[in-house]
């Protein structure tokens, strides 16, 4: 192979070494080392971020065209690393409080992160699959990490079985695409599809299966059934990780596939993404209305949010792709803050997750109530919070390409979803106070919540920084 060069893989290699080293540290010191392993994992991620910023981001494929680095992959990797960092920081105290303090927890998060980094950098369907499996396998274990809880085990098994099914769909789709084009390399597929007009029926079916497999991973309706159960059953800190990070990776993979190898067959996939987006928004808006559990509510909210992000993919423009990146960036940071607050809902040492448990929070714990208040307003897309700008960018991209129906339904479902976000606010500010929550909120969780709030409020002062960088990153997909 001529293109042997490991320099673009430095962040992944570094993080793998850190993860394996930390596993050794844990294996020698036992579960007492959980705290050390967690914080060492956080610093490892921080150094990886520096390494990632240090290597060149110009477009390059290495290792027999398996691995691609460009501004898009590097930008999404940055998001993934920041999300994982936040997820570990949020969970350290939680896993100790819940009595599931095991050093494998941060190590598994690191391995999932490595898998996601390979996913977004894959330039080959085989690499995509390997990265996806590395990520999914770690996530299955994390979902059932609370071994003494039946619900956690149930969540793990459900996620595992449906995840295996979706991987099967994905592989079947890949095999059909390979059968049509004779290659699994994105570059070759792109050139092969470019010279034909109108793909064959076999290829289209392959594309449908491939997209169904990925839609499962981003939990877009109608492939969302696992999401509420897994989010509810998994330990809350794991749910936070699920809601923040893997969706970015899956969304990035989807974007790379659609805008690079399958760019010339856009008329085939636009309809699929159109309906995925439509269903997700509607399911996310209506199914969440009747939820009593805040984790379930956030699960449906994430389904709806993926629907909004998919709107901008339908637009099929660099601005649209930039809007997707901006949207998932804002969504990740808001979710981190919300889960910081949800993780702090403990009463007499037990975690509670019902919306009713938040009743009267403004009197018992005003600071936490105001954090939730701001984040819920941002989630609902009320200006001047960051969430508003995400939705604005997404709807703008759709309107620019004259997808009026999609944008209108997006706005309507956004208004409907405002109801359940505001229901949380109503419970906190207008209901009779319930018993007080336990007071101690660890420092790391406070920091995550503060960063989230700071971002959500201050986004309005300098939106162009994020909008510009996401559009720059996204346009590298359209460059050639």
């Amino acid at each position, binding site marked *: 192979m001529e293109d042997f060069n490991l320099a673009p893989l430095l962040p992944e290699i570094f993080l793998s070494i850190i993860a394996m080293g930390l596993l050794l540290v844990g294996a020698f010191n036992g579960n007492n080392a959980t705290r050390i392993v967690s914080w060492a994992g956080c610093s490892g991620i921080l150094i990886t971020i520096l390494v990632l910023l240090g290597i060149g981001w110009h477009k390059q494929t290495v290792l027999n065209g398996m691995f691609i680095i460009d501004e898009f992959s590097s930008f999404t990797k940055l998001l993934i690393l920041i999300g994982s960092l936040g997820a570990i920081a949020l969970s350290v105290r939680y896993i100790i409080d819940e009595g599931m303090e*095991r050093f494998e927890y941060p190590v598994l998060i690191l391995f999932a992160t*490595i898998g996601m980094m*390979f996913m977004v950098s894959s330039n080959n369907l085989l690499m995509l699959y390997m990265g996806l499996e590395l990520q999914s*396998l770690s996530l299955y274990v994390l979902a059932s990490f609370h071994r003494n809880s039946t619900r956690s085990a149930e969540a793990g098994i459900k996620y595992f079985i449906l995840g295996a099914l979706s991987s099967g769909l994905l592989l079947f789709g890949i095999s059909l695409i390979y059968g049509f084009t*004779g290659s699994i390399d994105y570059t070759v597929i792109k050139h092969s599809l470019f*010279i034909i007009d109108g793909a064959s029926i076999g290829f289209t*079916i392959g594309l449908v299966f491939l997209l169904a497999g990925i839609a499962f991973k981003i939990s877009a309706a109608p492939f969302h059934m696992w999401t509420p159960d897994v989010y509810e059953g998994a330990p809350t800190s794991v749910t936070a990780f699920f809601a923040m990070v893997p969706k970015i990776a899956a969304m990035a993979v989807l974007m790379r596939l659609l805008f690079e190898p399958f760019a010339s067959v856009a008329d085939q996939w636009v309809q699929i993404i159109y309906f995925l987006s439509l269903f997700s928004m509607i399911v996310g808006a209506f199914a969440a209305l009747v939820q009593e559990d805040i984790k379930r509510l956030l699960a449906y909210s994430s389904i709806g949010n993926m629907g909004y992000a998919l709107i901008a993919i339908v637009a099929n423009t660099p601005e649209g792709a930039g809007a997707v990146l901006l949207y998932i960036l804002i969504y990740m940071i808001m979710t981190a803050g919300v889960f910081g607050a949800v993780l702090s809902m403990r009463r007499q040492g037990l975690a509670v997750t019902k919306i009713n448990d938040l009743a009267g929070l403004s009197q018992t714990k005003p600071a936490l109530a105001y954090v939730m208040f701001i984040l819920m307003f941002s989630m609902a897309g009320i200006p001047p919070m960051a969430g508003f700008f995400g939705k604005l960018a997404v709807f703008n991209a759709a309107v620019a390409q004259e997808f009026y129906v999609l944008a209108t339904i997006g706005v309507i479902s956004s208004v409907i979803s405002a109801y359940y976000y505001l229901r949380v606010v109503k419970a906190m500010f207008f209901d009779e106070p319930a018993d007080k929550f336990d007071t101690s909120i660890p420092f790391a969780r406070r920091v995550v919540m503060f960063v989230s709030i700071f971002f959500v409020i201050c986004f309005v002062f300098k939106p162009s920084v994020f909008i510009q960088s996401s559009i720059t990153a996204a346009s590298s997909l359209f460059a050639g």
Partner: protein
Amino acid sequence: MLIQALAFYLFAIILVASAGMVIAARNPVHSVLFLILGFFNSAGLFVLLGAEFVGMILVIVYVGAVAVLFLFVVMMLDISFSDLRKGAMQYVPVGLLIACVLFAELFLVYGAWSFVPGVEQNIAVATADFEGVSNAEVIGRVLYTDYFLPFQLAGLVLFVAMIGAIVLTLRVRPGVRKQIVSEQQKRKREDVLEVVKVTSGTGV
């Protein structure tokens, strides 16, 4: 050619029949044994295709490890399989319907199959200059060069699988007596032995 065709039909018929028996057999142990028969026959099909390495690996890995593991699990778990099977028959019509629809769809897809122009060239990239080289060598040459990165990632996946298996199953039980070699080594005679002079008739 005739012998090859005969061998193909023999392997294929036994494979399909044993696959059917895996589902139909009443005794789960018989199901696993039919599964092993199926593995052997698919290995035979691979050998007919000229992929003798894959065929042998199939026998070693699937028959030698996976199927035997299945057998152990089936024999050791105390599950009444006949209870599990009760009521399964009611899903047969729906299952058959879906199977027929899927079969028809696949038939349509594969019947009207077409390739992109230049597909031979795309495939040729993967199989360049390996004429007259044995199976295992070809796989080795490709796996450790062109597919080096996915190969390494597969290693990571297996590593995570191992961590996962340990995380989900290893429990520290109180009261389990483990061998601690260093303690055994440190043990001195004075710590555990006491020589007592007993005068006869008084007891200790």
